[in-house]
């Protein structure tokens, strides 16, 4: 009897404790922890921009609001982009100044609270698909500059699509508990002893660019594992690669020029071309940054704590089969082996990519040295084959057609495996079942 009573008491304590914590979480959820701190030197738009709207536009681009709040080909900032999570689908909302369906009625304080605390106008928590966990570090001035820019655009009527989430994830109050556990409401504070460029880069990469939201692994509660910052994660079928300073698994061996080119143009010679979500980041955001800001980002990324990847995922810069090939044909031994993957590559891919992986006419088509051809799970390789890729920047447009409709799962797997072995020297591990899972529904 005594034991039963003790267990009951223990359960009661846990329940009361959880209830108290939930109440506390609900109570503090709307507190943005506004400190009234002055704008730090690392924040703001470049001094060369003086027009307030242009400054707001620069910051809105640096924060890459468009990538999530604009459907490809749709009206800018009217929302509707789907985010498929393991627990359901969330749709982004209209952030134009439309009073009915957008944020036209939001006050400055309400907008700041949304970015700093992750709370809607009505006080309910927002889903952390909206990266307030990063935006919380933005200065108040920058948040309001972004608001002023959004309000300078014509309001568009576009009602939000309701989220499709399973229980209990459709219960917004639960997010207040998540916030109490994982949201550190803190503005960016320059790190003493680091250069001005490093601090600017840190502000761009964390508070504005929110690189962590894709490139940092998440725990079981879907919160960022800050200790493994930028070591790579898979989101919606795409791999955000390890971008730590590790020389083998990260970008430690990239030259300054390669890093700057990749960020500002979406392509780095010998390293590959941004596609999928990273292509969007370049297209909507990074290409608009000043060379100084790109330089600051490079400075910051250079010093990110190195993190190792899994053995076998390193980029092979001397893949034997590709090196044995000429531009127009594979080596005699490989050619004699034949196979479905080789056959498909010959028919649909070799015209642009070439057998030696150098890329015909456009460096963007080079496969040698790319992470896509070296990721043993072939995440982005599969997605690019299925969906194609388009990159539009001030330097022109490069695009690859999609083959998802043309090829069966078995054919995509065979082609993916050919690319893995030929251009990455990696084992052929992609299966038709896996391709089927990765096809967009």
């Amino acid at each position, binding site marked *: 009897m005594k034991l039963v009573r003790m267990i009951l008491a223990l359960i009661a304590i846990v329940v009361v404790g959880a209830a108290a914590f939930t109440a506390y979480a609900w109570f503090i959820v709307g507190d943005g922890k506004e400190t009234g701190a002055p704008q730090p030197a690392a924040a703001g738009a470049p001094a060369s921009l003086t027009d307030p709207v242009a400054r707001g536009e620069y910051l809105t681009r640096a924060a890459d609001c468009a990538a999530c709040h604009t459907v490809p080909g749709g009206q800018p900032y009217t929302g509707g982009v789907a985010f498929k999570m393991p627990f359901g689908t969330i749709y982004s909302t209209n952030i134009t100044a439309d009073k009915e369906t957008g944020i036209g009625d939001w006050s400055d304080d309400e907008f700041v609270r949304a970015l700093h605390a992750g709370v809607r106008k009505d006080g309910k928590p927002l889903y952390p698909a909206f990266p307030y966990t990063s935006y919380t570090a933005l200065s108040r001035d920058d948040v309001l500059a972004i608001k002023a820019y959004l309000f300078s655009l014509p309001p568009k009527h576009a009602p939000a699509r309701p989220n499709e989430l399973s229980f209990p994830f459709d219960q917004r109050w639960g997010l207040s508990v998540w916030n109490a556990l994982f949201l550190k409401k803190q503005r960016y504070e320059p790190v003493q002893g680091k250069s001005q460029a490093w601090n600017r880069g840190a502000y761009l990469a964390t508070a504005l660019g929110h690189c962590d939201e894709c490139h940092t692994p998440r725990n079981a509660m879907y919160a960022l594992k800050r200790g493994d910052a930028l070591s790579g994660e898979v989101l919606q079928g795409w791999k955000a690669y390890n971008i730590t300073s590790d020389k083998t698994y990260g970008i430690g061996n990239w030259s300054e020029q390669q890093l700057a080119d990749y960020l500002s143009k979406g392509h780095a010679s010998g390293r590959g071309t941004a596609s999928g979500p990273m292509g969007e980041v370049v297209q909507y955001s990074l290409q608009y940054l000043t060379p100084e800001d790109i330089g600051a980002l490079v400075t910051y990324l250079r010093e990110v704590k190195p993190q190792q990847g899994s053995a076998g995922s390193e980029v092979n810069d001397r893949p034997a089969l590709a090196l044995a090939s000429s531009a127009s044909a594979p080596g005699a031994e490989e050619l004699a082996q034949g196979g479905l993957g080789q056959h498909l590559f010959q028919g649909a891919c070799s015209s642009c990519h070439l057998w030696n992986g150098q890329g015909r006419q456009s460096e963007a088509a080079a496969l040698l040295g790319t992470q896509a051809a070296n990721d043993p799970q072939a995440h982005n390789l599969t997605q690019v084959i299925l969906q194609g890729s388009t990159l539009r920047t001030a330097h022109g447009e490069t695009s690859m*057609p999609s083959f998802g409709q043309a090829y069966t799962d078995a054919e995509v797997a065979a082609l993916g495996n050919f690319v893995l072995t030929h251009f990455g020297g990696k084992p052929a591990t992609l299966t038709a079942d896996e391709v089927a899972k990765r096809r967009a529904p």
Partner: protein
Amino acid sequence: MIVLNINGESRSVDVPDDMPLLWVLRDVIGLTGTKFGCGIAQCGACTVHLDGAAVRSCVLPVAAVGTKAVTTIEGVGASAVGKKVQQAWLDIEVVQCGYCQSGQIMSAAALLAATPEPSDAEIDVAMSGNICRCGTYVRIREAIRQVATGQKVAPQTLPNEAPNQAAATGQVLSFVRVEGVA
């Protein structure tokens, strides 16, 4: 204004940077020998040379050409290899409807310039990016062989055994080596 070196001539064109080279060649300059096929670099009909390398002009933004020399089907005969390829195409009577053939010749010339004696397998692989709706692939391969070996061949539609069916359809049954050097 963009300055292009096309078939050895300098041409200035006032076009947007991202206009495909194919459009510039056909619609702006008037060199209509190069054909539009698929528009996504999958068929090879638009193949031209950029500093001797075969490229698909339908997906090549004109600004990416820079100072490289563009050679089109109108100019390929100026090079020794190009001239031999053209002659072989005539000798073998490769062409049927002809739409893809500018691209086929440009790809063949680029292949032979880089690999003067390609194996049959190499020919098939290298030419696989050029699609022919009429199915002239066998003659294309034979024409490339003629250039590679210098051995003139003639298509035989009426072999010694003379099956009537083959003769009636004009189907190529074999190629016979003939005297002389291509």
